[in-house]
């Protein structure tokens, strides 16, 4: 029972605390019978236990302890009432937290947008539209007044819309302004406001007030940016685009409608197009309140293409100018007084006179401005753009021909001069240039304009001067005074314009071969055969363009000969090649230039021939030793490569490993610190 003896303390303690199972207790008691030392310990522990029980029982909290805890808890963590509790409980939910964070972010984005002004105007417009579309019942207006007063920018836009809706404000709206002014007052004296508010608004509802009240209310608002409704200066204008059958008819009808709606025609202008159709503009002035009706009537005249309706608020500018005008008048009066008293030096008087002139000029300018605004406000401007149907029908077509000619000539300069001499009143040379590039090659570019009836003949004459490599013509049809795709174009006249001819002359040498052939000839005596080949070429009317000869250390000789023959001699030379040796690897490439007119018989054909002989068969690149050497070199390369790859992998992984170890270390430190 070594274990019991070794851990006798805990066994005894558990026994005293009644936590031993029956088996354990029996075992312990059996051991106690055997062991005198443990018996002594048992005694001591029993006493200890008793003392502890007695002593610590005194320290035990009294029976009222729980009650005190509960009372303290209730005092320090008071129960939240209804809504607050619900909110707090809700905030504890993860989903609600996420939603709240998302909402907060969205809110920030919106605020940012408003601050930067992005979309701000459209927002206001939408707000205004909603207002006009659904006018609220008058009773609900006063309750909104406070909110309106607070949201400055939007509120400024609102009375303006109301003005459009109803020029003469109904009593309910007036009480709204009253309310608004009071909302401002309420911030000064909040205690008074509560009782005063109800009685006053009741008074308004009960007695329909005279219009002066509204103005009064407007004045009490002091520095508020929006003055009373009736004084708003709004310029309304509309732009309408119509497609009509007959211009004159439409103008007549517009005049009639304008008269009906108490408006007048300000300006008309019209313009006759090349195809005989009329296009024009009519500016009509109508009273703003009749604008909508007028537009409706106008629309029935023809097909509506576009309509825009705009309102410009010039209230602020108007009243600013008005105030400045008043100041200027005062200034003027003062200057006049100064002149009247006529004291002071002559130069001073002159100065005053000058100043007076300046002030008067300013006054006139401002008066003019105000008058202009008044007239603009008094009448709405409708700009009607009229266009007769089939406006786009073209009047005529112009056919323009453009030709490109590429010539190859043996002597570029001579050909160039010959073409130049063709110039006549019907053939104008617009551009002629002779170029010599860095390697001494000569080429020429020419452009000419040829009268339509002369064009075929002139082009034919130019073609004779050299070998035509390429000839292309393009025809372009342009419509005059309209859209070529529009209906009615088949009726239009057709006219032929001058033919533009661009000629490029290059030396024959530079011409690309019509057909390219490459082949190899195996023979024993390369030198000799190459010479023979050159002689053969001369005989067939061809030219040797390049020729090389080389012999490598193994005794192999190679000669490369490239030659050019006319197409008509091509077959003959190919046949004669057989006599030189064994012909191998023949490949023929032909360029199909279907788009161009080609003189095939004289077109050049290139033939490149490799004449070679076989050398020694065994080289240094074969044999046992070479194979061994190659194998060794390759394996060394492979080992170096894998070493390099391992290095790269370590370099890539090391920072990660260091970072992960660091994070784990810090985490452990934190956990340890918490413990």
């Amino acid at each position, binding site marked *: 029972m070594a274990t019991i003896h070794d*851990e*006798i*303390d*805990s*066994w*005894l*303690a*558990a026994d005293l*605390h009644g*936590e031993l199972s029956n088996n354990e207790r029996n075992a312990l008691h059996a051991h106690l019978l055997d062991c005198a030392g443990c018996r002594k*310990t048992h*005694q*001591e*522990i029993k*006493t*200890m*236990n008793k*003392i*502890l*029980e007695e*002593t*610590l*029982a005194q*320290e*035990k*909290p009294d029976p009222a*302890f*729980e009650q*005190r*805890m*509960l009372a*303290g*808890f209730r005092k*320090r*963590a008071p*129960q939240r009432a209804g809504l607050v*509790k619900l909110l707090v*409980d809700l905030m*504890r939910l993860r989903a609600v937290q996420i939603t709240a964070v998302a909402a907060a972010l969205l809110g920030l984005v919106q605020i940012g947008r408003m601050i930067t002004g992005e979309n701000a105007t459209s927002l206001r417009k939408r707000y205004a539209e909603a207002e006009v579309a659904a006018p609220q019942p008058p009773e609900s207006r006063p309750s909104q007044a406070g909110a309106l007063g607070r949201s400055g920018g939007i509120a400024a836009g609102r009375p303006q819309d109301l003005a459009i809706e109803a020029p003469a404000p109904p009593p309910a709206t007036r009480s709204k302004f009253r309310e608004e002014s009071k909302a401002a007052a309420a911030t000064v004296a909040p205690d008074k406001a509560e009782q005063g508010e109800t009685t006053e608004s009741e008074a308004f509802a009960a007695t329909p007030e005279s219009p002066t009240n509204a103005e009064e209310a407007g004045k009490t608002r002091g520095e508020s940016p929006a003055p009373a409704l009736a004084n708003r200066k709004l310029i309304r204008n509309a732009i309408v685009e119509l497609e009509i059958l007959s211009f004159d008819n439409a103008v007549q009808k517009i005049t009639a409608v304008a008269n009906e709606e108490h408006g007048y025609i300000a300006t008309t202008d019209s313009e006759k197009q090349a195809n005989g159709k009329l296009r024009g503009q009519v500016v009509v002035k109508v009273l703003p309140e009749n604008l909508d009706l007028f537009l409706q009537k106008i629309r029935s005249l023809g097909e509506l293409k576009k309509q825009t309706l705009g309102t410009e608020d010039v209230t602020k500018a108007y009243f600013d100018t008005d105030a400045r005008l008043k100041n200027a008048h005062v200034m003027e009066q003062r200057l006049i007084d100064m002149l009247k008293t006529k004291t002071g030096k002559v130069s001073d008087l002159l100065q005053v006179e000058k100043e007076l002139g300046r002030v008067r000029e300013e006054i006139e300018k401002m008066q003019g401005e105000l008058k202009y605004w008044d007239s603009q406000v008094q009448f709405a401007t409708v700009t009607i753009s009229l266009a007769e149907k089939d406006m786009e029908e073209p009047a005529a077509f112009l056919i323009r021909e453009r030709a490109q000619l590429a010539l190859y000539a043996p002597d570029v300069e001579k050909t160039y001069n010959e073409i130049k001499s063709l110039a006549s009143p019907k053939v104008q040379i617009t551009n002629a240039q002779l170029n010599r590039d860095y390697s001494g090659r000569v080429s020429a570019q020419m452009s000419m304009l040829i009268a339509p009836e002369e064009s075929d003949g002139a082009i034919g004459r130019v073609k004779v001067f050299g070998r035509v490599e390429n000839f292309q013509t393009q025809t372009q049809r342009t419509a005059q005074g309209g859209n070529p795709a529009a209906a009615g174009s088949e009726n239009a006249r057709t006219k032929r314009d001058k033919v533009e001819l661009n000629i490029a002359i290059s030396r024959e040498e530079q011409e690309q071969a019509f057909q390219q052939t490459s082949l190899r000839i195996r023979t024993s005596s390369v030198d000799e055969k190459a010479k023979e080949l050159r002689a053969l070429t001369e005989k067939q009317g061809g030219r040797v363009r390049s020729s090389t000869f080389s012999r490598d250390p193994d005794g192999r000789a190679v000669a490369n000969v490239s030659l050019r023959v006319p197409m008509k001699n091509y077959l003959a030379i190919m046949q004669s090649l057989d006599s030189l040796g064994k012909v191998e690897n023949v490949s023929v490439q032909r360029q199909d230039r279907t788009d161009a007119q080609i003189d095939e018989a004289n077109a050049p054909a290139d033939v490149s021939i490799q004449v070679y002989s076989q050398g020694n068969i065994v080289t240094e690149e074969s044999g046992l030793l070479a194979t061994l050497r190659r194998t060794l070199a390759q394996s060394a390369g492979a080992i170096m490569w894998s070493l390099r790859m391992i290095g790269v992998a370590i370099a890539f992984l090391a920072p990660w490993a260091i970072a992960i170890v660091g994070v784990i270390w810090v985490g452990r430190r934190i956990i340890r610190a918490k413990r």
Partner: protein
Amino acid sequence: MDPSEREKYQAAIHGDREAFEMIIRTHSRTLFAIAYGVLQSREEAEDVAQDSLVKAWKTRWRVRDPEKFPAWLATIARHKAHDVFRKRRTVPLSEQATEPIEPEPANTSALDQKLHSALAALPELHRAALTLRYFEEMDYRTIENSLGLTNGALRGILGRALTSMRKQLRPALTPMD
């Protein structure tokens, strides 16, 4: 854990005040015992128990597993008690010197004083186990739950605690035999 107990803890975590008050009734003595184990002062221990309960109510949503609620409560109480203990140590020396004598008036015997000093010499965990056992006569299982110990560990702790007390008090014990 008993399903009804579990339900009670769950309700408390979700903000059911009644369930939480029930828990206060059943667990405040445990908290007191733990705090007493650290501080050896009834007033301070009671304050700590009170503070712990309020803190537990305010941060109850941090507990994910209702099974761990009692152990979590005990942890709060232990931390709070340690905070108080640490603050007490920073009290100026002159006050500290008078303190040990003052709270033990004449009505406590010499044995009591010795017992208290022996208790003070024990490691904190041992003291907590002892106070839980002798204040509340808790069975080992409940103590294990509250302190987050295994049965073997608790037995060892209690055995060692008793023995070390016994050794320190031996001169006082012998006359009683």
